[in-house]
């Protein structure tokens, strides 16, 4: 028996779509620039705000959390982990890793469904 899934109602968070959106935002802001102490604050703020605005434009009823970490490449290590207590059928997450020659950038998106 096949279950009919109506096309307009998507179950769960679409991680691939979010991944593409966020990657485009990062490319636009950090593409081709080198690490600069003075600008990093602006960059993280811009990445997070733009990602958030674009994700909201998808029109889904989600509460969104976007985190961005920008680190200078200096040979030192960084470990990140996250643990979430939520409903796995409706909520989801997406992580985008980006790097160039002078810096690394990690963006996490967490989407939590609002039940109407």
């Amino acid at each position: 028996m096949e279950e009919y899934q109506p096309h307009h109602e998507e179950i769960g968070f679409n991680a691939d779509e979010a991944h593409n959106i966020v990657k485009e935002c990062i490319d636009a802001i950090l593409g081709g620039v080198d690490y600069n102490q003075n600008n990093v604050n602006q960059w993280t703020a811009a990445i997070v705000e733009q990602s958030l605005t674009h994700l909201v434009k998808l029109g889904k009823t989600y509460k969104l959390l976007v985190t961005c970490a920008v680190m200078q490449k200096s040979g030192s290590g960084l470990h990140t982990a996250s643990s979430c207590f939520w409903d796995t059928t409706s909520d989801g997450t997406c992580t985008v890793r980006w790097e160039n020659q002078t810096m690394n950038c990690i963006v996490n998106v967490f989407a939590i469904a609002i039940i109407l």
Partner: protein
Amino acid sequence: MSEVTKDKASRLLKKRGSMSSVSSPDIKMKEIRIRAKDSVSTVSYVDEPSHHDDASRPAVHMENTYQLGPGKCFPVDAVNHILKDVLTNYLQEEKYEPDLCRQMTKTIAEVVKARVKDLLIPRYKLVVIIHIGQLNNQSLHIGSRCLWDDANDTFASFVFRNTSLFALATVYAVYLE
């Protein structure tokens, strides 16, 4: 036929490196699936979120409770205290080592989540993020933006430093409407 599919499933699970087990007596894997009321706890070591859990459980439709706001508000101070406690206990004496810290981030994330869950704050979903890095005179910026209901949703965070490493722990609490 079912044996073949079970083998395939176990192979797929092994490839992804996930620790959630298929509950079948034939497959000898570490059974760490803990059923607590309606929750299933899975520890997953992959970078991408695993989707096989979602497909197996249909979406639950909840009845309307007509409740407008949380009965009990989220205790930010208590959670700050928990974060300080956990980070200091686990990392006070540690030196930065890649393998140790890789394991440590996952462990600390699970421990913090369990302790905040023990506070039994109803109708709150939790997101716990841990960053552990080496102190090397480099620069690092971490920022976050949230689209949520400011009245009900909140976060708590704590930074720990010792001679060779730093750790940042953040807990976001989102009210379930």
